[in-house]
């Protein structure tokens, strides 16, 4: 039996699909009877997705300065 602590340690392996078959069964069984871990894993996945979709764009970047540098090869 996996404990909840062990489940939290396996979190990224679970969401990235890197588990061995035997562990996968144990994880599935734990998740079926433990809504707390199910929620934690779901939120961890959501966290990863938020980071993947984070735009991190910056309108205030001085793009003109970079463009000027690209045009002047005397660096």
């Amino acid at each position, binding site marked *: 039996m996996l*404990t*909840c*602590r*062990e489940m*939290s*340690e396996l*979190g*990224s*392996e679970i969401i*990235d699909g*890197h588990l061995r078959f035997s562990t996968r069964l144990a994880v599935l069984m734990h998740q079926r009877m433990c809504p*707390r*871990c199910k*929620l*934690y894993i779901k*939120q*961890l996945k*959501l*966290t*990863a*997705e*938020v*980071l*993947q*979709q*984070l*735009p*991190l*764009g*910056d*309108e205030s*970047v001085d*793009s*003109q300065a*970079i*463009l000027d*540098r*690209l045009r002047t090869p005397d660096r």
Partner: protein
Amino acid sequence: MVDEQELVKRLRQGDSNALETAIKLHHAFLVAMAIPLVGADSADDVAQETWLKAFAAISKFEGRAKLRTWLARIAINEAHALRRKRGRELSLDDWGIDSGSPIGSRFNQQGGWNAPPSQWHHDTPEALLTEAELHECIRKHLHQLPGDQQSVLMMRELGGLGFDEIARALSLAEGNIRVLLHRGRQRMHAMLNHFEEVGTC
């Protein structure tokens, strides 16, 4: 939303408006990714050099990867080149050591939850990202992560690089990269959980 295919096409034609768009979209990411590798003082140089190399090589970009992933690869090379020029290899000696679970105290001695995660108000990434304050909070917390976790999170989640190339870039084993990614995600989860509970960063 910017259509990436269209953007790349215009970049290939040497369209400087397209380049400006690309810079606004990705420069901050390149700087953020370079900071743990070369320090805050040189990160902008790495990003600028990346644009120079990228613009010169845009015809070689096949569009199989995302533009950001392609730029990230160039930036990693530039970061390594800068470190070599300064006469030192990436000194990442203390990187990759597992700092342990950041949520260890949330479990009891039997390994059950003492402080389980709470229900969130948002349940899709899109919904979470509509919160402007959250963007700022995520950036802040990303920069507060230990350098190794920060690097892996930037390269993997934001940059879309593979585990193998991240391992090579940081001279660590793939197993280490997976652990660092997990620790970084756990910390960012704790941050999001706090935001969902309290409503502020």
